[in-house]
């Protein structure tokens, strides 16, 4: 029994690296990842090293666990073809059967569900942490009942409407007042002696020298 076990362990140890070589990059089930750390963080950019890669594999294992609750481990995420860019390929193996790859569709769905968490782990965004061929998950847009522009429109037209009504009412009141005044004048006229000459009635004005000034204002109105 012991020799067999020893042989099995040896076998997987030898097979491990070769497994990586054959399984990754399996373009059907593997995805290329591209990070642009300096673009995202500028001066606060961290260096990409082994630990960061470990974090990536752990995060991806987390995403897979969230997706179908199987006990994924860091070792189930295989990474290869790392470049200076920083970019690399990865594939995910089934925890129960390490020679089987999880299908690309499942990996894609898992990544899309936990995309936000993955991004945040690296302080990056959808544009700076790219999973090629996995479209970014967009946040569900806030469904507002009324479009905001209608609200602004409502406010503006309300204010304008109030303005129109106010102006109309004020001019109506002014006209009423004027009518009241002219009626008052006519009443004055009946009490004193009025000149009802050419249809224009105004009380006869007598100046200090007794001259009738009723005609003074009329000169410009006659066409000569």
């Amino acid at each position, binding site marked *: 029994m012991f020799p067999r076990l020893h042989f099995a362990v040896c076998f997987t140890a030898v097979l491990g690296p070769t497994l990586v070589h054959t399984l990754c990059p399996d373009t059907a089930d593997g995805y290329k990842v*591209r*990070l*642009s*750390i*300096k*673009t995202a963080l500028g001066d606060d950019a961290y260096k990409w090293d082994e630990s960061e890669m470990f974090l990536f594999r752990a995060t991806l294992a987390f995403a897979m666990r969230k997706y179908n609750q199987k006990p994924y481990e860091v070792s189930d995420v295989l990474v290869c073809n790392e*470049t*200076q*860019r*920083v*970019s690399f390929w990865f594939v995910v193996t089934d925890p129960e059967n390490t020679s089987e790859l999880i299908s690309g569709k499942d990996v894609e769905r898992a990544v899309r569900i936990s995309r936000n968490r993955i991004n945040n782990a690296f302080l990056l965004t959808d544009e700076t942490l790219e999973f090629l061929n996995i*479209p*970014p*998950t*967009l946040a*569900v*847009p806030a469904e507002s009942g009324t479009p*905001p*522009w*209608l609200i*602004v*429109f409502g406010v*503006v*037209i309300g204010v*304008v*409407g109030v*303005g*129109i009504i106010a*102006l*109309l009412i004020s*001019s109506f009141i002014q*006209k009423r007042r004027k009518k009241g005044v002219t009626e008052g004048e006519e009443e004055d006229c009946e009490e004193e002696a009025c000149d009802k000459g050419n249809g224009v009635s105004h009380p006869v004005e007598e100046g200090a020298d007794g001259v009738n000034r009723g005609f003074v204002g009329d*000169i*410009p*109105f006659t*066409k*000569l």
Partner: protein
Amino acid sequence: GKGWRGRVHAQDRTPVHSKAPQSTGERPKWDNKIQYLLTCIGFAVGLGNVWRFPYLCQIYGGGAFLIPYLIALVFEGLPLLYLELAIGQRLRMGSIGVWNSISPYLGGVGMASMVVSFLVGMFYNTILAWVLWYFFHSFQNPLPWRSCPVFNLTGKSVEECELSSPVNYFWYRETLNITPNIETSGSLQWWLVICLATAWCIVYVCFIRGIETIGKAAYITATFPYLVLTIFLVRALTLPGAMTGLKYLFTPQWEILKNPRVWLDAATQIFFSLSLAFGGLIAFSIKNKLDQDAIIVGCINSATSIYASIPIFAILGFKANSNYEDCLNNNILSLTNAFNMGDQNITIENYETWLTYLNTSDPTKVANLHLKVCDLQTFLDQSASGTGLAFIVFTEAVIKMPGSQVWSVLFFIMLFTLGLSSMFGNLEGVLTPLLDLKLVPTCIPKEIFTGFMCLVYFIFSFIFALGSGNYWLEIFNSYVGSVPLLVIAFFEITAVSYVYGINRYVFSDDIEWMTGRRPNIFWQANWRVISPLMLLVVLLAYVVIQAMQELTYSVSAPQVDFPMYEVLPYPGWVCAICVLLSTVPCILIPLVALYRFVHFLKKRVERLRAPSFYENEGYVSDM
């Protein structure tokens, strides 16, 4: 006839009260002279100062364009301005009354003015409705024209938007919902109708009591644009790339002055910019130092144009710079990804060196990337005027500025106030002649009548809320707001110079009586010779050029690369409408003259047939 002229002079010798007996009651009662000046300035300064003048500067050699522009101002703009203000004040009537007084045969000039004012008012307020639409949408975060609308589930964006740009898509599809050509009318866009309703309501509030309310509104509508322009100026000068834009704008290219087209466009720009021949200035004018007023209004109008072009070009320079950097960054990203080099190893500064190095080491790979050629000059050369400048170019620039919503709101309020103050002149140019013609029943209060006018305008402007509305607006803009105005102005100046008489005893007399001094030799020379000649040349050149051009229009076609339009010819019935729009206002002039002449002949014939000793010719009524 002469008898009438004699009568006017007899009246001159008596002091006239402010209520002149010949007028029909609609004379401006300005609270003070500032209101009057602000209203005139507001009428003259309009959207064209902001979106047409900078464009002309750009395509006609920058600073060099100022020379033909200022020459046109001095020899054409100011004399015509002075003339209109003087005529309006002297005869104290609206445009129809004025021309009827000068000579009954010229009553058609006033009618033509009124018709043109009406047609222009229809489409001008549609532009304000579009401005309001953008204003309403500026209160969102992010601005709706920043990115293409996305389908929720698939994450894909609308294809038409992908092909052109979010800004183009928002303008052509979400605002106008434009049809592919002018024959397809499309349906009435309800959102544009409610924006039109808002615009007309705002106009009504300001116009409700005529001059009274307009004068008060002018305090805001005439001054606010300057405030916003100054804010933009300060902001724009701090943006990167602003200086490039300004250098580009103001660097003079003197050879361009040899092109006669430049002079023609300078003359037409001054003419349309001052809003002459609409009858609005005639309706506004009051007793004041008229030559001073003319110079003030004319110079402020031109100064505003120049002042406005500074922030506009600073912002356009910023936009060109931004586009250029985006272009380079795209190329850099392609190169970085293809060659798997470190992030940010290639920057804008060392792009050229890296490109040559990579090209020599692996030219096929570089060629396969299909890198775009990024040239700052090409981006700067992308010029736009009119609605294209405001709703496409400027909105794109605004998204790139931090605090986009604030700038967007400010910009569209500025455009709205600019257009609103010009609308007042248009409306007065229709209302005052209607009062002259005594077509307004006196039992109806003024508020109701102005409301009725706004309602009629609103219903007519539904044409521009159709799917093909923008095409119709372009037609109205090109054919109504051009040749008829030139014709009217030409008749104005020849009528006053040669029919009324600018010789020493008549018009100059009037001006001396009104302002206390005679107009000096500069004005006389201009009125009699220089300005009519200039107008005639401009008019003929304009008509010839229009006639030689094929009647075509451009259609937005997202499949084509920038500038993304196709040019189509107008169908026959549309051509007929264009010709009608240009000629009907002009034809009114000879028609009315003919009508008066026939009337005069009839009277003559009647009198010859049955002369009566008791007929007193002293009371022959004014025709």
